[in-house]
């Protein structure tokens, strides 16, 4: 492990000038911090933030802040990011106090759950407001944790990306590749934590290690090139005769580098080679040669080297870089939802589309989103206005305010997503879905109420007729505690970001439970005015007709291939006799 050596006095930057704090948010974040503490972290202060007081008490870090003391009373968030956010807001002053005065802050967080996804963006916001250089290490959930958690994670990641100077996202699925599947669960997670703690440490070392050829934060920044980028990170340390080669191999094997292949596309690559006093120039040269093999000729190589007594006879290689453009995973997630959606990068700073797209699968059949749709083309002021009234349904602010940033593009994408739903869903959605689904969707029902009205007014077809929906909504449900809306009104942008991130459905859920009146009861009362029974019959009829088509036609046309996978080329089903197809 590389450690920064305090004894090395000559060019050591004063710690007070480069105050570094590492903040772990949520359970996963705390684990990483514990791992760092275990490995002996003497060069940074550790701060753990968590909602769960039991988890917090077992943490070994020096500073701890409990989130949501009154809201959650020491319990976890139960996987609800909006609760995580509320909890963080409650402790916002403590957080601000804790980060103030530091030059650099590392936040490590496991996204997907409640505390991590909810609170981390808040922490980042606070840190950003304090003008601190912010690097976020985030882990994305395993794919087996389900789409919903992944959506929450992507949501949070987008928000974080806007505040942080650099986001380094670790995909847990890819971490898995490093670990033997048979390894114990503890080992597996420990390995993941270890990678992250190594990364944090390495980044710190890169920035603060005294060097023969020094690398500073400026180099780090240019390597990370913070706009719309995805971080590449590799770290390796090795001992022995062949240490330079092994260290490079190890660094390239890091899951984010994809065996060095991704470096080819990088604009700038930062490489730091560090070793004990035994490190030779030849070894440094070897390392650089190996690295350059993987780097395009255009790429700028930011090179640094330094000696560190603590490394004694081992040698470490750190590679940090970033590539522009879409991240494969993120793209997949988005594509799975909505193929027409433009590709989205993982560490993005400026791609607010995914929250919407990510929300789509859950709410696709929900008309609530549709009712949000009309606002897409909203100009700035009506929003602000609506915003002033804290009584407005949260779901609506969410869509509305967010969309004001990215102009028309999104209104296109949005309409592409939801257009088909316009046709028939509104009529039965409130009845069927509100009835049988759990109350997660209650909030959507509230939104739904608007819809018939908007429809009746013909507002449904026109994206440019936005203002009507929010107004009736204001009366529907105002009692939900939007504390943050009041306290933070001054910071319009940041606040709306928070709002757009939090999954507001859940909060309402609780309300609905305590007060069953407005939620499920309301929607059915409205649609009858629209003759919903008729509509329902219509849709089911249509469904029946489609089924028949599906079953009958291929059987008739394909003979022995009726039950095989269809062979479709250029939209033609090749299993149907060409003779028959061409004759038509």
């Amino acid at each position, binding site marked *: 492990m590389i450690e920064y050596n305090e004894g090395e006095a000559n060019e050591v930057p004063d710690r007070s000038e480069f105050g570094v704090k590492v903040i772990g948010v949520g359970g996963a974040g705390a684990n990483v911090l514990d791992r760092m503490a275990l490995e002996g972290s003497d060069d940074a202060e550790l701060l753990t933030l968590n909602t769960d007081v039991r988890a917090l008490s077992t943490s070994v870090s020096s500073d701890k802040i409990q989130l949501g003391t009154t809201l959650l009373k020491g319990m976890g968030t139960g996987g609800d990011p909006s609760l995580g956010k509320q909890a963080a807001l409650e402790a916002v002053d403590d957080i601000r106090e804790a980060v103030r005065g530091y030059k650099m802050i590392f936040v490590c967080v496991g996204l997907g759950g409640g505390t991590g996804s909810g609170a981390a963006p808040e922490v980042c916001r606070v840190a950003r407001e304090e003008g601190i250089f912010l690097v976020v290490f985030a882990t994305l959930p395993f794919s087996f944790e389900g789409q919903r958690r992944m959506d929450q994670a992507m949501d949070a990641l987008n928000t974080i990306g806007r505040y942080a100077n650099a986001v380094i996202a670790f995909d847990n699925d890819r971490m898995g590749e490093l670990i033997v599947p048979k390894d114990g669960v503890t080992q597996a997670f420990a390995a993941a934590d270890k990678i992250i703690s190594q990364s944090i440490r390495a980044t710190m070392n890169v920035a603060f290690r005294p060097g023969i050829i020094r690398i500073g934060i400026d180099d780090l920044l240019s390597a990370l090139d913070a706009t719309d980028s995805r971080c590449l990170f590799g770290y390796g340390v090795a001992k022995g005769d062949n240490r330079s080669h092994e260290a490079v191999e190890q660094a390239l094997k890091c899951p984010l580098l994809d*065996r060095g292949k991704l470096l080819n596309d990088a604009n700038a690559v930062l490489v730091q080679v560090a070793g004990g006093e035994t490190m030779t120039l*030849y070894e440094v040269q070897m390392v650089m*040669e190996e690295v350059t093999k*993987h780097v395009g000729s255009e790429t700028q190589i930011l090179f640094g080297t330094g000696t560190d007594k603590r490394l004694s006879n081992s040698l470490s290689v750190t590679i940090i870089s970033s590539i522009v453009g879409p991240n494969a995973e993120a793209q997949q997630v988005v594509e799975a939802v909505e193929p027409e959606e433009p590709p989205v990068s993982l560490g993005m700073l400026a791609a607010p589309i995914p929250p919407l797209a990510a929300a789509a699968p859950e709410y696709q059949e929900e008309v609530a989103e549709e009712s949000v749709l009309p606002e897409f083309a909203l100009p700035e002021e009506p929003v602000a206005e609506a915003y002033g009234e804290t009584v407005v349904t949260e779901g609506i602010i969410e869509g509305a305010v967010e969309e004001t940033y990215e102009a028309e593009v999104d209104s296109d994408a949005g309409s592409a997503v939801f257009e088909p739903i316009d046709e028939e869903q509104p009529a039965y959605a409130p009845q069927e879905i509100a009835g049988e689904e759990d109350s997660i969707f209650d909030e959507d029902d509230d939104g739904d109420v608007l819809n018939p009205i908007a429809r009746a007014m013909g507002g449904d077809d026109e994206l440019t007729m936005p203002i009507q929906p929010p107004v009736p909504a204001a009366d529907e449900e105002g009692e939900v505690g939007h504390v943050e809306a009041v306290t933070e009104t001054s910071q319009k942008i940041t606040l709306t970001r928070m709002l757009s991130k939090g999954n507001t459905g859940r909060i309402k859920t609780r309300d609905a439970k305590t007060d069953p009146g407005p939620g499920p009861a309301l929607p059915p009362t409205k649609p009858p005015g629209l003759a919903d029974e008729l509509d329902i019959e219509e849709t089911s009829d249509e469904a029946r007709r489609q089924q028949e088509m599906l079953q009958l036609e291929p059987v008739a046309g394909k003979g022995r291939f009726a039950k095989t996978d269809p062979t479709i080329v250029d939209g033609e089903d*090749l299993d149907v*006799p060409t*003779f028959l197809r061409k004759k038509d």
Partner: protein
Amino acid sequence: MASSNIYVGLEIGTSKVCIVVGEVRNDGAIKILGVGQHPSAGVRKGEVVDSETVQTCLHDALMRAEERSDVEVNTVFLAVTGSHIQSINNRGTIRVADEQMEINSEDLEEVKKIARDVPLPKENGYIHSIIQHYFVDGQDKVLNPLGMLGQKLEADYHIVHGVKTRIQNAIKCVREVPLEVEDIVFSPVAAAQVVLNREAKNEGALLIDIGGGTTDYICFVDGAVVASGCVAVGGDHITNDIALVLKIPLARAEKLKVTHGSASMKNVIDAEIAVEGEAGKKVSQEMLNGIMNARVTELLSVVAEPLKQQGLLDKLGKGIFLTGGSSLMNGIGDLAEDIFGIPVQKAGSSSMSGPSALFENPQYATPVGLIRYAQLLDEQKPKKGALSKLGQKFEKIFGGGK
């Protein structure tokens, strides 16, 4: 060389399961020791859909092959195909270390690793990665860059990949017989080993293997594989078309196709053909040919289109080789010539000894090709070992000097 140079090729086709036991002689010629085959069931479009039925057929074919060749078969080379199999060309690039100068075998390994590293769909796995050629400092088409001087090494690879689970199903089916699968080979890659000779590969050739359930193709230019693929349409479709259009049972449609049918619309005699077993039912030759012609035209066009787009058709000096059971169809050669605009020849496998007359039949191109493939694979192994040893030796000498 390995103690045993007897190889077994297994093709589980849509129409037949075929096992070929072959012995590779010292001079490189292949002697076919025995063949076992059995009409296939439980295979659709080149893929196993009913494992148990396939195993019964496989077992039967295996018994025959063992009996005739007097060889106990333990491991086989398995040909795989199916519409899920796709191919791409990818180029890997590395920069050779400045003071190293000569390209060594490690560089080759590394460039291969990089070239292979294409983003496949999650469910897909590699079947082959075939080297096309290297570039050294942009210099064209270097076949063996080992020991050359240069700073930039690039390698073009042709990568064949398919859905892992579907391939595994085929392997699992064979293992349960039980037979060990030594390697899997994409069918046209195997067939090309016997159908196309070195000359044809160098001058450019397209091999189209029209089987029962699938049509596989592979295209060689300058001795390297430039395209390969599979269309899940084959002879079965033609039979199916005839049955559906004429409303007759499949068995009679098959018979019509084989005895009377032609894919060509040229010189159609004006005659009525009586459908056997269906009293009084007659079909005109023109109708029958029309059905077959429409299907084959479409099929060949589907194969031709991507190749045309890549501009490969102009580079085929040796033209097109048709193989597979359906290539026995009358008139298919003429039709293919019309569609591709290139000379077409029907091909079986050549340069075999043993009961070879049988194997000139294009139906056996793939299983026999498997044996040739196995032979090549074996030849490459010790060769490669020796070279890398040599490379290491050099490295030692030079490395010590530093």
